[in-house]
């Protein structure tokens, strides 16, 4: 009963939903009675299968209920705007829903397919010129409006990313400086053996580049594992196929380049300082 009532409360939303992926259905011949499509989540939670009959009503306990057959179970598309919404969704034929909720001959919105190109603008102008009480919007305008939330999240991620980069860069710089500093005796020995300053600097820089590269490879592998874990966790929490963390080649290139620059920079800085210090001082004499 509780499942049914939750469905009822959300019937009105059915008009406004779209873009679902059909994953199961029954033959067309069996569709004589009113049929509905239900959300995969609802099917799973309520144990409803294709072919089952359910009662739909505009309100819990309402006498004006209607029996319909589940003809399809649909899966939501990976839409970020729906990720935090946990309600169930039912799709009905328009006239069925209008009658069920006593909505008259009204709709919440129309989606209009145009021939493309300039046709969309011309259709938009003509609809708005004739409109009274409604307004036509181009899809791109709606997309901009609905993506505002994600722009905010994206800006937040970028800001957090910058802070994380500053923190990790400082850490990396510290470690590289210390690592090179630890080599002061080796550097002193090399200098006493007659190896030139530039060779010393180059060898230390080569070593720090290798360490930075190794660290980057390790970091990329760790990133792949963590992103797989993050995706699995949030996909299960929000019950969505949406991917929350994506590692792209540009992300990898950016992080590897950043760590290489920092590593080589820190190595060069420390190596130059060591090479300028007299070998005996480096030995502590």
């Amino acid at each position, binding site marked *: 009963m509780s499942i049914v009532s939750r469905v009822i409360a*959300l019937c009105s939303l059915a008009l406004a939903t779209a873009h679902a992926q059909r994953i199961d259905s029954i033959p067309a011949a069996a569709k004589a009675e009113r049929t509905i499509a239900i959300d995969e989540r609802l099917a799973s939670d309520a144990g409803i299968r294709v072919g089952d009959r359910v009662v739909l009503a505009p309100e819990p306990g309402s006498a004006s209920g209607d029996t319909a057959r589940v003809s399809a179970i649909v899966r939501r598309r990976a839409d970020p705007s729906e990720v935090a919404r946990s*309600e169930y969704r039912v799709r009905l034929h328009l006239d069925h829903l209008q009658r069920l909720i006593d909505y008259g001959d009204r709709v919440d919105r129309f989606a209009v397919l145009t021939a493309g190109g300039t046709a969309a603008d011309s259709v938009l102008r003509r609809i708005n010129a004739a409109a009274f009480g*409604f307004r036509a919007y181009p899809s791109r305008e709606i997309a901009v409006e609905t993506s505002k939330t994600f722009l*905010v999240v994206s*800006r*937040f991620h970028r800001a957090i990313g910058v802070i994380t980069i500053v*923190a990790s860069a400082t850490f990396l710089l510290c470690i590289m*400086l*210390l690592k090179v500093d630890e080599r002061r005796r080796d550097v002193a020995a090399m200098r006493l053996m007659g190896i030139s300053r530039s060779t010393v600097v180059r060898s230390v820089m080569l070593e720090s580049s290798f360490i930075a590269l190794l660290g980057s490879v390790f970091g990329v592998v760790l990133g792949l594992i963590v992103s797989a874990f993050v995706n699995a966790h949030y996909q299960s929490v929000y019950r969505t196929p949406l991917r929350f963390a994506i590692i792209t080649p540009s992300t990898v290139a950016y992080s590897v380049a950043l760590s290489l620059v920092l590593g080589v920079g820190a190595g060069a800085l420390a190596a130059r300082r060591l090479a300028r210090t007299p070998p005996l001082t480096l030995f502590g004499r």
Partner: protein
Amino acid sequence: MRLQLAGRSLRRNVSRTLLATLGVAVSAAMLLDMVMLATGMRESFASLLGRNGFTIRVSPRGTLPFDSEATIGQGADAAAAIAGVPGVTAVAPVLGATIHVLGSGPAVTAFALGIDPAVQGDYELLDGAEPTAPDAVVASDAFLRATNAHIGDTIDVAVGFDPQLRTYQGRRRLVVSGRAHFVYLSADDRAAALQLGTVQAMAGRERADRVSLFMVRTAPNVDPEVARAAIERALPRVTALSTAAAIAEAERRLSYFRQLAFILGAVSLIVGFLLVSTIITVSVNERVGEIAVMRAIGVSRWHIVQQITIEGVALSLTGAVAGLLLGIVTARYLNSILRGFPGLPDAIDFFLFQPSAAFRALGLLVASGIIAGIYPSWRAASLPISGTLREEAVG
């Protein structure tokens, strides 16, 4: 003496000490921000819902308040049934509707709340009077700006259009009686509040005696959970939500931010610990000869441990203090980004500075600095004196 020695040791390599302090400061700032993020949402949301003493929200069964367009029928009977539940002291009905303010230019669309002015928790009156008359309306600043209306003006309002007949539906002339701040809406939302009966009458047959939500106030000595359960028993067609449950639901929806805060906070703590422990370890390794000499002239092992631990504490403490300032600045910046969420109520802050939580977090960082210093210091103090001296002398 120990403090002086620790200070000299840190000053010996200024660039390294500064870099380490900067590293700890950034880690501390990050940790503080994440603590503020983890606690801020909950606290500000709880404070928002707790305003005006309403402890329970009643919405159509299976929905959250204003999460869908569903409404509760037979609103007057439902209000009476809720008021009859033991412990309930006030019931505030609310009906949401879209209104269109008509004028010479294009109609201005706004969100209207039908309320009972005597018992309402949706707005705070800033100027003017409550909408006690059926044709009175109080409006937000954004509404007044968009309609170019002022207190005392009369506005032409409709709730819908009939495209076929090209007429307005539920048209009324309303008098702006006041200016209000709508606590659950953002400052940019065009909002208005008028009497519940007026909105129901304007919306016609489909909204007659219907309510979107009831806000319920309970007596201070009554457990809201008990009253909530009693309301659901009395009215099976509704879902009653206590403030605690509403906060839990909001937390579930925003769990991503809390988990992000936890993960990044933990990473910051680990980075701070690693940084201090690495710096101290390297610093100790560089001074094994010096430490052996101190031991040889009679300085106790405990003294050495204390001196080196003080270095770790000094690094962590300085970094934590700098991080506190840096963290507050970055938290304000990050908060200003997240406050850009469309429709976010003014009262919601994602980052909230709570001294107890902030100082606990920074205390944890300093404690990690102490722990980071103990192992290398104890290892250095335990080195065999003669062997170390010989090794350092011979090289």
